[in-house]
């Protein structure tokens, strides 16, 4: 990764520009804080880092697959973060939004990988009837996001995106476009991942955890007294190559006007979580950041512009925080 200066695009062709992020929820093995989400973790996760009874409640969650539990926890955190004055008394951030206007878009690559491997082994070695009836529906990867939508009565739509590594950026783009086209008013965008199954390789880059954002029109956020965390504009492009900078993802060349931003090239992992982790961290920062990532034959980027005065201090020294420090110390900004 490296820091470099660029410029925001003069406009966007992808995402409603009046959509703001009002809540960020993070559920990662090393932190629940957005500001710390960009730290590069050790592969895997320590045993017992997530207790569904503590994080979600004593009933109804124990037998959900881990990636579903992570997503639900991140969703709750995001909605709590999005709360404005009086929202709690009113029944929550979504209480004033008709269920038919609540949309969900979730990206994942590996939420069901280990589950599939275990089911496959069960069928081969014994019989499909030995599969747990509680887990059997989760062969379908859309149920991870659907469970989030059901928890919050989101009836506008529930999209699951699975593009390798860019599924989170796709979730944001498709969800935001759907809002712009009138399919919803408020959007929950998330990514959740669990470790890859052994047969899929990529164990060293395995990702575990979830991130959820609450997105809504700025006018709505202001009306309920909520402070936007910032704005996100995404762009993807069909092209081969590693995570790139401004021109590779098709945005205008640096220094052609507009606010400056730092570039974070997300290292390739075995899933779609890393770009969203960096996006969440950038929303907790103070300067615009272009988060770029690469999938097979695909480049993606998210320009994250945090709102002034909403930065949360970072407690980590690695990852994106250190990169900013280096870039600032180098006098490029």
């Amino acid at each position, binding site marked *: 990764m490296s820091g470099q200066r660029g410029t925001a695009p003069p406009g966007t062709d992808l995402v409603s520009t009046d959509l703001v992020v009002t809540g960020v929820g993070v559920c990662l093995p090393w932190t629940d804080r957005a500001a710390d989400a960009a730290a590069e973790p050790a592969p895997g996760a320590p045993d017992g880092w997530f207790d569904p009874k503590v994080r979600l409640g004593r009933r109804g969650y124990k037998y959900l697959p881990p990636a579903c539990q992570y997503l639900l926890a991140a969703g709750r955190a995001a909605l709590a973060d999005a709360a404005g004055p009086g929202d709690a008394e009113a029944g929550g951030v979504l209480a004033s939004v008709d269920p038919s206007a609540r949309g969900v878009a979730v990206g994942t690559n590996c939420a069901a990988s280990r589950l599939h491997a275990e089911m496959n082994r069960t069928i081969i070695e014994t019989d499909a009837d030995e599969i747990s009836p509680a887990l059997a*529906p989760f062969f379908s990867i859309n149920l991870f996001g659907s469970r989030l939508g059901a928890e919050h009565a989101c009836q506008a739509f529930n999209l699951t995106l699975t593009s390798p590594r860019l599924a989170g950026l796709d979730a944001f783009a498709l969800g935001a476009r759907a809002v712009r086209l009138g399919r919803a008013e408020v959007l929950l965008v998330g990514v959740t991942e669990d470790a890859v199954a052994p047969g899929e390789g990529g164990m060293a*880059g395995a990702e575990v955890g979830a991130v959820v954002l609450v997105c809504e029109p700025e006018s709505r956020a202001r009306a309920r007294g909520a402070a936007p965390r910032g704005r996100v504009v995404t762009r993807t492009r069909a092209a081969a190559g590693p995570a790139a900078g401004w021109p590779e993802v098709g945005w205008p060349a640096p220094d052609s006007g507009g606010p400056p931003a730092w570039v974070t090239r997300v290292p390739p992992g075995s899933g779609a979580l890393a770009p969203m982790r960096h996006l969440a961290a950038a929303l907790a920062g103070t300067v615009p950041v272009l988060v770029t990532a690469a999938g097979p034959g695909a480049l993606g980027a998210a320009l994250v512009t945090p709102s002034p005065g909403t930065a949360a201090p970072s407690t980590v020294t690695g990852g994106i925080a250190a990169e900013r420090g280096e870039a600032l110390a180098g006098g490029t900004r």
Partner: protein
Amino acid sequence: MARTDGAGEALMMDEVMISGVGVVSCLGPDAGAFWTGLGSADGMPARADDPDAHMRLPLMYKVTAPLGPDPRPGGAGGAPDGAPDGGPDGGPDADRARRFAVAAALEALRDAGIDPADAATGPISVVVGTGMGEAGSHERAAGAGTAGAGTAGAGTAGAGTAGEAPGEDGWRPTFTIAAAVAEAIADSGGAGGAHAPVSVSNACAASGFAISAGADLIRAGEADVVVAGGAEAYSRVALGCFNRLGAIDPLRCRPFDADRHGTVFGEGAAMVVLESARHAAARAAAAGPESPHGAPGPAGRYGRLAGAGWSCDAYHLTAPEPGGTQIERGMLGALAEAGIGADDVGVVVPHGTGTELNDVVESEVLRRLFGERAPRVPLYSLKAAIGHTGGAAGALAVAAAALILRHGHVPANVAVGELDPDCPVWLPRVAEGPPSGRYALVNAYAFGGNNVSLVLAGPAR
């Protein structure tokens, strides 16, 4: 800006034309075989060719036609199905879903008269729905005793191409079909999409959402040409879990039959070429190749994708909401976006899976939608002919609807037994046509209560 079609109807420049169709199914390797087979299919599945499928009902409607070659360098050839299983590293059963998808996508582009290498074509975006991606290849690797860390990863054929992540640690992602389609289009000389290829995985509604999302790209002014659709191949895990849930019919897929006991999965892919009205108009004057389906010109030969409605039950992981409130909202949303009423609909390609409650709920909502006209609105019950193709089902239904509107008649439905009295639908047993309305309604539903309805407007006559 606007132009008018032959019927004098104003076409806005951001409207979405359907210019090409490509299909791979158990009925054959292309859209021609699909259309011919719709009216003559016997509707009988076969036993899955999988000795490791330890389950009560390992039934499938399997694609048996020779496949096109695997587009990856070193990929499998076009041997007919039934040859020895090659697993993920090669052989005729490797990466079946992506091969279905690529074959259907390239056929759809040919049908549309679009040459990806033609500079006038511009970028071609790709949106593909699939429930399981290439899970089947991973499963076969395990079944062959080759599972293990990295076994199916680094060093396999095609590593580094669209189907394989470029990472150094050999991660082999499951959902690579959209990337494979984009790569195949690029290999045909395409300039690359305005967007990265998008993989949508809303289970059995995935490709319905994919086609709608592709249309949204055009409506939002972000793309002019989109290849959108879906693909699904045999998955031991998917079929095993449906067995575990008691959702497989022991005989065949027979939606709306009083004796139905579930669904039966099928393999296949369908892709449509969506094109902005502006793009279609720009090339309308150019002579295009004759469609194998007999259309006079390539641009918008199948009419328009006129509307889409999305909804979510947010009710139950697997069962539909019994009142059908959200699927009705989806249908009404699609009609509203198309600017039409229910009386304008001449044919329905329902979701109709054969699962007991799904068929009852959908039938009841169609009865509410069409009112006293309901007994006279023909349905084409596609899954009775090709099985439930999972994430590809919505796209195959759209392909069927597009061909019905193009040809002007509804094929004879595959015979089922006595109709369920709680399913008051009309499944004509002889070809019906032309439809009494110019529009077709397509439904696609999924686990999680994910619902999408699409309205197609037939071509001007």
